[in-house]
């Protein structure tokens, strides 16, 4: 594991750069645990201060230090995104691999259900659900719901790879070798879909975070919890953009962009690393 990291860092510029960007984010997130202020507390500093030596990223009209807010917000937003991504990836993997492996009628039925869910317009359904469940809709619940809506496309991608793997001789060979289905799926097929999984994770994260922001802006989220969407929500409630408090919006956005550029670069380089083709080339095949 350590060696892989070292290799990646040493030989892959993208990975290095991505790591640096992500380290910035991680640094912010970690530092948020040492924040001098309670992350939900308001009017703890002078409001509306532009960026300065004392307040690096300025302060909000709610008297919060943007720097510490961003740390906490990134943490919460990212946590949300990651949970969505993990759950939806797991579903997509199971559905895609199983459906592709079994094939035939079962595959058709699974994909029928898959497409049905995929055809449901996400935003309306989600808004409805958030609205209906309002009180019960904690952020973790929301993450689960979002995850349930965000996997169908990716499971289809995974399935198409699985379907072609099913045709390959090594799969048949594995069957006749007496390997169990779970073993075949996890040990034999999984490595081939990992690049897709990584790539779609990126998109899923972007989507999830976008969702968080959208819901916040439409006023559907928990305003007590600092998140990126929450910051924008409050900035809106204080007309920050027209009042000239640009730093309240600009810095969160800057770090979202940094986060995604970093994630994207990491995903790209890790993808290359775990891509079976590249792996084989390294193994000397």
């Amino acid at each position, binding site marked *: 594991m350590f060696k892989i990291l070292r290799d990646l860092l040493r030989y892959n510029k993208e990975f290095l750069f991505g790591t640096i960007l992500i380290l910035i984010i991680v640094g912010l997130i970690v530092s948020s645990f040492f924040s001098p202020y309670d992350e939900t507390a308001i009017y703890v500093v002078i409001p509306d201060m532009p960026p300065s030596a004392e307040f690096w990223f300025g302060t909000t009209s709610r008297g919060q230090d943007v720097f510490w807010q961003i740390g906490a917000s990134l943490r919460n937003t990212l946590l949300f995104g990651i949970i969505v991504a993990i759950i939806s990836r797991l579903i997509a993997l199971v559905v895609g691999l199983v459906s592709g492996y079994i094939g035939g009628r079962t595959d058709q039925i699974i994909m029928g259900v898959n*497409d049905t869910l995929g055809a*449901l*317009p996400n935003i*309306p*359904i989600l808004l409805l659900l958030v609205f*209906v469940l309002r009180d019960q809709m904690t952020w973790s619940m929301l993450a689960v719901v979002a995850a349930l809506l965000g996997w169908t496309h990716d499971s289809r991608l995974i399935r198409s790879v699985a379907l072609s793997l099913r045709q390959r001789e090594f799969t048949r060979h594995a069957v006749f070798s007496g390997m169990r289905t779970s073993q075949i799926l996890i040990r034999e097929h999984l490595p081939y879909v990992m690049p897709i999984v990584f790539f779609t994770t990126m998109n899923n994260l972007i989507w999830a975070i976008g969702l968080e922001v959208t819901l916040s802006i439409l006023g559907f989220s928990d305003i007590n919890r600092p998140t990126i969407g929450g910051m924008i929500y409050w900035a809106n409630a204080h007309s920050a953009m027209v009042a000239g408090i640009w730093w309240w919006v600009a810095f969160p956005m800057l770090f979202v962009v940094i986060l995604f550029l970093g994630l994207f670069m990491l995903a790209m380089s890790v993808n290359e690393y775990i891509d079976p083709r590249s792996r084989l080339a390294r193994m000397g095949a």
Partner: protein
Amino acid sequence: MNGFLIYAGKRFLQFLFVVVTGITLAFLIAHFSPVDPVEQTVSLLTSFGSTDPQSVEILRQSLRELYGTGGPLLDQYFTFWGRVLTGDFGPSLSSFPTPVMTVIGRALPWTVGLLTLATIIAWIIGNLLGALAGYFRNSRLLKLAGIVIMALQPIPTYIIGLSLVILFGFVWPILPISGGAQVNLTPAFSWAFISSVIEHGILPALTLVLVGIGGWFISMRSLVSNIITDDHVVYAELGGVRSSSIFSYYVARNAMLPQVTGLALSLGNVFGGAVIVEFVFNYPGIGKLLISGIYSGDYSLVLGVTTIAIIAVAAAVFVIDVIYPLIDPRVKLG
């Protein structure tokens, strides 16, 4: 022909399945909405006036009868299907008694027009740049474009929209920032109206395009970088075929096919509305309608919008499935 019909028939069944399940789901969710449309109307009618409690109770009773919101769920469900099949979702409860279809019908052209155009533009630009970036991997300019697009992609729609509003409405006020067309223009096939619609559409469309380009760009770039290692491309290069032909006929064209599917799907999604963009630009579209429907507990309206969205996506999938074998010469029916 027979085989095609059977194939198309199967797809059609799937289409029906998708639509029925989707609508049922939406129906159930919408009916568990905690907002009671009657209460919304009551509170609207009483919020500013001096109304004595007894009258309010009477008003509530009569509205309940008027809206017909009582009755067991199953009955409502079947009634609802009856309505769906006749394309009539009944009266909108928040715009009583105007039919939901009329309300939607007014918003639909705006959303569809804006989103269709923006989707197509984003698709074209994203794919073109993506294809170029995938093909000319060493071009500095294209690399830069790639980075800009990558950086743009994670920015939430709202922020992009708002930035454009501030930029082109405030800092350099050259474009209208709100509404679908100039005030007091009657919709007509006149240049005045059309140009005004276009002018008002620029910023929302630009937002959608900026948001939409990234996805197309990335997928196209990776498609192209795979395709350029394909034998037929390598061979054409060895055959001295002109770069421009290779790019357009050998690379782009092959990469295009999956993207066409994607385009159809996103066009299907158009009916879901661009909630945030319409919200930011006060665009008189279906996304705004949906939000206000949800807010007012007008489930007839919400269901109407959702149903149309579901049907549209399912139809897009269906059409693509049926047409795909015709546009991609390689596809055989399995």
